């Protein structure tokens, strides 16, 4: 267990003559260190192995066709779409933290927004792969885009699956721009501190000649505000549109109006759980405990309780409406969920999403990083099962009992699922090592020292006015 006992240089107090330079040092030393902590190498080893599994499983599926997966009539959506909805949901917390909490003036978000945004980008990348490989002929998904072609055909814009293309595409592009724009000043910091030419060149190109001019800051802040205001309705629309894939169909268990808000709440819930799952080890190994404090974890845990209760309410309301509708098919779909052949998945979901997060009502639990991590992982598991329950139970038993079936995943299903985590964690670990993990400029702007002089000046003016 050398990784726990070895001297970790990241745990030393950061050097610097004032609080601003200490913040700079605390964040940049991760990207500038000659060697990251051993835990980073171990994690990268595991995640890149999983990434290799991802590549192998996809190559196998491309070569042999999607029959390699367990997708089979009547459950045609199977794991790929479960994974798609899971990953796209994970992304939502990043946008919520960076955009909605920004508009609500929650300055504590500055500690976590950068890597929550990175998480969004990587999660949406994982998500985007699945519909592409699920279509079965990976050389044809370009048909989904409105590209003029020799067949003189156009996509069908009345289909929710086509809305998905635009929603997810826009979401990825806007998130990427938001993330990149937020990083420009911090990339300039890394450029100015670079000691080798390649670093100076790469960070220099990415920073685009940012020199912190106040006239530039003025437009930059305005652009940031506008992007936040645009990302807020966008993030609400994305998971709503994803839920339309289900809600606009006729299938019992899918055909329900509660889906858009229920999906958005679930996405934020699952996304926050993933932020916590990433934040706890990151702050531990990279010495960011001063920037990502227990207080931040506690606030996120409170959001976890709130969104968890919303999700629990949605589970209950689904049952109520299926009874209240008087439709025997709806009623059966939900009784079948809870007590049918997939009862094990349903109760796993309820336990992980509704029951376990209730532990956060205790202050000792929500201020304990390791309990936070454990509950975060449980919620991630629960949210994956939520999508599994929605997709597989509804498809496996619909109107016609003669076409009922039971979904059995193959090893390639598990390999693709596990591999997508490999892609996500590999990208995330590389991000931790080579990019500014915390938004330095924003943390400095939110620091009391940034306002001290200003407050004094205000006080002086008030004093003068009084005199």
């Amino acid at each position: 267990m050398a990784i726990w006992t070895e001297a970790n240089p990241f745990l030393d107090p950061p050097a610097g003559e004032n609080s601003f330079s200490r913040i700079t040092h605390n964040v940049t030393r991760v990207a500038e260190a000659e060697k990251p902590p051993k835990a980073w190498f171990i994690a990268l080893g595991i995640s890149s192995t999983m990434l290799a599994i991802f590549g192998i499983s996809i190559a196998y599926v491309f070569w042999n066709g999607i029959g390699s997966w367990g997708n089979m009539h009547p459950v045609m959506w199977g794991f790929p779409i479960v994974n798609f909805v899971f990953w796209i949901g994970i992304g939502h917390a990043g946008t919520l933290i960076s955009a909605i909490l920004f508009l609500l003036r929650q300055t504590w978000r500055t500690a976590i927004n950068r890597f929550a945004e990175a998480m969004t980008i990587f999660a949406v990348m994982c998500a985007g792969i699945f519909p592409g490989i699920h279509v079965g002929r990976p050389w044809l998904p370009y048909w989904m885009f409105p590209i003029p072609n020799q067949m003189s055909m156009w996509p069908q814009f009345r289909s929710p699956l086509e809305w998905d293309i635009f929603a997810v595409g826009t979401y990825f592009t806007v998130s990427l721009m938001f993330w990149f724009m937020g990083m420009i000043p911090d990339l300039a910091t890394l450029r100015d501190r670079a000691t080798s030419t390649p670093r100076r060149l790469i960070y220099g190109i990415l920073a685009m000649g940012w020199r912190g001019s106040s006239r530039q800051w003025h437009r930059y802040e305005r652009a940031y505000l506008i992007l936040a205001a645009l990302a807020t309705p966008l993030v609400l629309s994305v998971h709503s549109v994803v839920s339309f894939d289900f809600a606009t169909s006729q299938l019992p268990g899918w055909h329900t109006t509660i889906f858009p808000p229920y999906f958005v709440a679930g996405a934020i819930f699952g996304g926050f759980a993933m932020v916590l799952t990433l934040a706890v080890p990151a702050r531990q190994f990279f010495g960011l405990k001063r920037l990502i404090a227990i207080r931040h974890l506690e606030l996120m845990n409170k959001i976890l309780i709130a969104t968890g209760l919303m999700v629990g309410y949605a589970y209950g309301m689904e049952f109520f409406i299926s009874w209240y509708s008087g439709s025997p098919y709806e009623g059966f779909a939900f009784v079948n969920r809870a007590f049918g052949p997939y009862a094990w998945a349903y109760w796993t979901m309820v336990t992980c999403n509704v029951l376990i997060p209730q532990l956060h009502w205790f202050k000792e639990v929500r201020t304990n990083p390791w309990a936070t991590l454990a509950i975060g992982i449980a919620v991630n598991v629960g949210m994956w099962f939520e999508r599994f329950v929605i997709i597989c139970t509804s498809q496996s038993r619909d109107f016609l009992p003669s076409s009922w079936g039971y979904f059995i995943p193959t090893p390639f299903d598990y390999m693709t699922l596990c591999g997508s985590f490999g892609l996500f964690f590999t990208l995330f670990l590389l991000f931790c090592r080579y990019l500014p993990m915390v938004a330095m400029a924003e943390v400095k702007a939110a620091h009391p020292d940034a306002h001290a002089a200003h407050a004094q000046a205000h006080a002086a003016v008030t004093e003068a006015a009084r005199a």
Partner: protein
Amino acid sequence: MNEKASTAGAASGTAKSHGLLAEYRTPGALIAASKRVRDAGYRHWDTYTPFPVHGIDRAMGIKMTGLPWIVLACGLLGCGTGIWLQWWTNAVDYAWIISGKPFWSLPANVPVIFELSVLFSATGALFGMLALNGLPHPSHPLDLSARFAGVTSDKFFLLIQSSDPRFDERETRALLQETEPAGMEELPEGPGLDDRLPAYWTYAMVILAVLALVPFGLIAKARAEKSSQPRLHAIGDMDWQPKFKAQRANLVFADHRAMRLPVEGTVARGELFDDDHFYRGKTSSGAWARTFPKQVEPSDELMQRGNQRFGIYCTPCHGQLGDGNGMITQRAQDIGQVWVPPTNIADERLHRQPVGQLFNTVSRGLRNMPAYGAQIEPMDRWAIVMYVRALQRSRHANLSDLPEADRASLK
């Protein structure tokens, strides 16, 4: 800018100067200095900070940026693109009926219109900001100052450019001195830092550029040349499938047959027929049932039904009275054909037969009477049997069997 700087430099009689750079320790000191410089009427000047300093916009007199208007224009463009794209592709160029919906109905098009509005606005916000800020801006005279590197960490700077009409070497310096900077220096006008690429980067890029041309070369070669070989079928597109084709052996199954027998013991939905009495007219011991099954409840309605079905299926041979003198029998006798007349159902032998046996005869036929099981539902067959029983009764009836009123009419 260079021209102006060089004239300013020439006027002051020194080497080319870009301007005066002052350093401050705190954001507060920078704000105070900014107010002085603003009030002194300078225009070509700026401050540089590691983070957006609250209140510096007003201290410097920065006017509100026009960026929101750019974003609005982009958003409207995105909205219009969303409407136009969907209308033109789905309602004009490739109109296609989907579930009987109109070609152009706005509600279904709202999501894409919304997403494109957001996409265009956000792109406008980022690239509008970069354009207004003059980014990317690779090289700047500020890069020559060693102390300026701290601007992205914890240092605060103020720069007055020598291109400013009010710039005067001594006066400007004096003004900045009054603001008590932590340091001050004259910034030379220069090319900035050495911004040439290292040699190995240049080589790597040249090699990559050459390699990038290879695919295009191969495509050009393929287009120009002729080949007798079939084209490479890189993407199968399901062109070869192990499936059955008409008039050929089926290679999927060992017996090469495409039509498969159902699994042994397969029963079609609703065709289990496990009620011997109802479906076969037999009791559990296998003898002909003497009673009607419990599903068959005698009623006027059922008797009417039996009458009607008997009329359709039985009368052609057996005749309206069941005496075997139907239309077909009459015709056969007319043309002198060899014809075994059908049985008279009022026959004593048939009168004594159990109902189960009559049902069996209707269902499965007898001698040259065909089976009607496939054509007549079981309940209707029982209705026919019931009607046959009524016919038999009527053929052996006494006056006492009639109701009072009818008896009177016969007299």
